[in-house]
């Protein structure tokens, strides 16, 4: 039995702990996959994040030949991992662009249409940290939707609720986060 499956089995015991422990593993796996993809595929081609996360899930979870039903914690971890990867990348890129100094983004100065994705990722990450305290539910949804790129259906299946609920929560989370971004 691999380390991952052990950890996933432990999920039932302590959710928080399991997710935390799972994270580095998922993170490494996702990074590896993403790097392989980018190197292997023709330049300019898109990589579906959902595909990436799913592939990581298949690799990690099915290693032991056992089928795991509790996907929630995996996706949570995967989303968290994707978030880290993306934020790191964005930070790295923006530090190159801005000559090393970290530049504070101000939403008022930005035409939203003109913000690059990197900008958005950093803004979202910052705002999520702030929102975490008051509204962890929204942050959880944003992780799954924005960073892991899951569809409403997938999130609903993962969390065991209806799609309609996710649609509602995602809509609410978006405006809350956007409001938070505006106050950054």
């Amino acid at each position, binding site marked *: 039995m691999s380390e991952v499956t052990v950890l996933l089995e432990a999920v039932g015991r302590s959710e928080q702990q399991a997710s935390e422990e799972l994270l580095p593993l998922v993170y490494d796996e996702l990074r590896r996959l*993403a790097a392989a*993809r*980018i190197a292997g595929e023709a*330049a*300019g*081609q*898109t*990589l*579906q*994040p959902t595909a*990436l996360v799913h592939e990581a899930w298949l690799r990690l979870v099915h290693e032991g030949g056992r089928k795991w039903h509790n996907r929630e914690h995996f996706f949570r971890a995967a989303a968290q991992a*994707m978030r880290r990867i*993306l934020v790191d*990348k*964005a930070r790295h890129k923006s530090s190159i662009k801005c000559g090393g100094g970290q530049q504070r983004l101000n939403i008022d100065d930005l035409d*939203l*249409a003109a913000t690059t*994705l*990197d900008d*958005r*990722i950093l803004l*979202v990450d910052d705002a999520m940290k702030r929102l975490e305290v008051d*509204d962890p*539910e929204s942050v959880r949804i944003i992780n799954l*939707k*924005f*960073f*892991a*790129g899951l569809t409403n259906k997938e999130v609903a299946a993962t969390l065991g609720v209806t799609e309609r609920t996710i649609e*509602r*929560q995602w*809509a*609410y989370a*978006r*405006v*809350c*986060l*956007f*409001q938070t*971004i*505006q106050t950054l």
Partner: protein
Amino acid sequence: MTVARQIEEALFDAARNIADLEARRAFLDQTCHGNTALRQRLDALLASLTSANDFFNVSAPRAMLASAPAPVVKASHGAETNGSLFSDGLETRIGPYRLMQRLGEGGCGVVYMAEQEAPLRRLVALKIIRLGMDTERVVARFDLERQALALMDHPNIARVLDAGATQSGRPYFVMELVHGVRITDYCNENHLDTAGRLRLFIQVCHAIQHAHQKGLIHRDIKPSNILVTLHDGEPAPKVIDFGIAKATEGPLTDNAMLTACDQFVGTPAYMSPERAETSGLDVDTRSDIYSLGVLLYELLSGRTPFDAKQLLESGVDEIRRALRERDPAIPSTMLTTLTHTDLNLIALQRHVEAPSLISTLKGDLDWIVMKALEKDRQRRYQTANELAADVQRFLHNEPVVARPPSRVYRLQKLVRRNKVVFAAAAAVVAALLVGLGASTWLFIKERESRREAEHGRAMEAILRRQAEARERIAQAAVLVSQSHFDEADRLVDGVSFPETTSEGETVFRTLGEWAAIQSQWKRAAERLTMLQQVDHLETWDTATLDCSRCAAALLELGDTNAYDRFRRAAIQYFGGTSDPLVAERTVKNALLLPADRSVMVSLAPLAEIAANSFNKPPGPGDSWMAPWRCVSLALIDYRRGRFSDSAGWANRCIAYGEDNPPRVATARAILAMADVRLGHADDARAELALSRAMIDARFQTSLDTDGSKGFWFDWVLGRALLREAMATVEPEVKTLQTTEISAK
């Protein structure tokens, strides 16, 4: 999750699903009653709904991982663009369309090649409009034209298939995919000679004509919207972007104008003067004719009439002023001002030597281009077909319609600056809208959106009728010029609301006279009344003579009511004049039948102008104008009951001599009437006999349009006054004699 948080989320969800803002507000009023904090919070959340959706439009990783260096693709429009589709945060799928490749970036947005998957699989061009436009309005305006666009079916027009809004709220348009290069580039790269260019241009005109007949104006004709593709080895132009300028444009306020110059329209060099005006509402198909003129200018000479860069640098007001007032150099002259290198390059692109290019353009082509570029749209070619036909005539070495402006016309242009014309055109449109009926308007008032729709359709119907009238008149003008009056008359029969154009004037005048000299007075009256409606471009001289024509026909027809309406309109139109010639003729034209007090009062100032002119030293042409002035003054004094003054003016007229027989006959008829009132019955009879002899002699033979022995209408007006004189002098034989004269 706290209960408060749950409630907030639930209320937010319910509210955001109420599309009608009024209803949404009512819902919130009710549910948040007393809880101001919650209400404020919800209002804030709802307010950022759209922005938030935009912001989260793409999920991060997909785009992030795709942002690796991308290959550069060669776009259809020849522009090198970055091949990454999604760098601007767009979804890859829009409705049933899958974006495949970025083709280019135009003024108002980005164009993609896309694959439509349903209901049929095909490649299309999808144009996504820049952010910053009111998407709903754009799409609504497009919807207004959707039906007309669907009616458009022409091999040289790229079909516009669909429009909608992307998830992020930008409007997009879907068009037939055209692989081509802009027409100017095609011509230059292939060293097309002038004839080759003209043949392509004619095809463009025909495409535009087709659209105009469907009630559609392009509004943004320029080389980048006319792509040339090869069809069986033959170049075929395709006009793209139909309906898009209309949907995306607002009134050209200064700000919008800046945007327009900066990015949206791309260049003001192709913009018609009336389109550049702030109001921007009064644009019709002839605005496209102007743009076609600019295109022709550029195809022939390699330059636009106004330098695009220079225009842009000069600022908004200056652009408007230039378009309105500055006369561009005629193409052949412009070429001579270029440097040797520039000129040789342009000639080389046309496969000729520079001197030969200049001499080809000089003359007919110069005037064709300049006629299309007239500032006053009523002097332009009225239809794209007409323009194409003139170009065709040039290619066939036939005489063209376009003419260099006469000296008189240029002078007039300086003096008049079109004020009357624009007022008249606006009045016609207003009358048409009122004509739609009050009930329609009340209904329209109910809803803003509906009003816009109805208004759009009404305008479309008007445009269509105008286009049709214009087309018929244009064809009639050709027939008239070839003396096919019967056919021409059939064409204009039933044309309603013609616009003021010089072609229209010629057509109605010619056909009116044609009917008149055959004594078909009903038809003559109809055509000449129509002439009155459109007669705003001619010199005052011609316009007042046209009034005499109309008056003559109405009197012969015996329609006194129509004559009364006519004279009141004429007094209103010419009443403000200070020109003795106009004053004199208006007095005469208005007093051919006895008039009531209001007419007499309004004519008094005109009579004064005519009389006072005798106190000034005679000007050029006074030798023939002065005697006519005496006729009018004799007539008005007779109508006023100042019989001895009247006789004085009549005698003064007769003293000038007999060079113009109808004038003398008219003066004698008036003199006869004045004499009888003064109690000089014998003198009256003598004058009457002299007058009658001249008029009888003239009407022995049929009328003609040859004015050398006096105009036909002057004879007809003289005869009308003679009849009145006979009834006045010899009341007892009135009936008999009038019948006699009419029989002849």
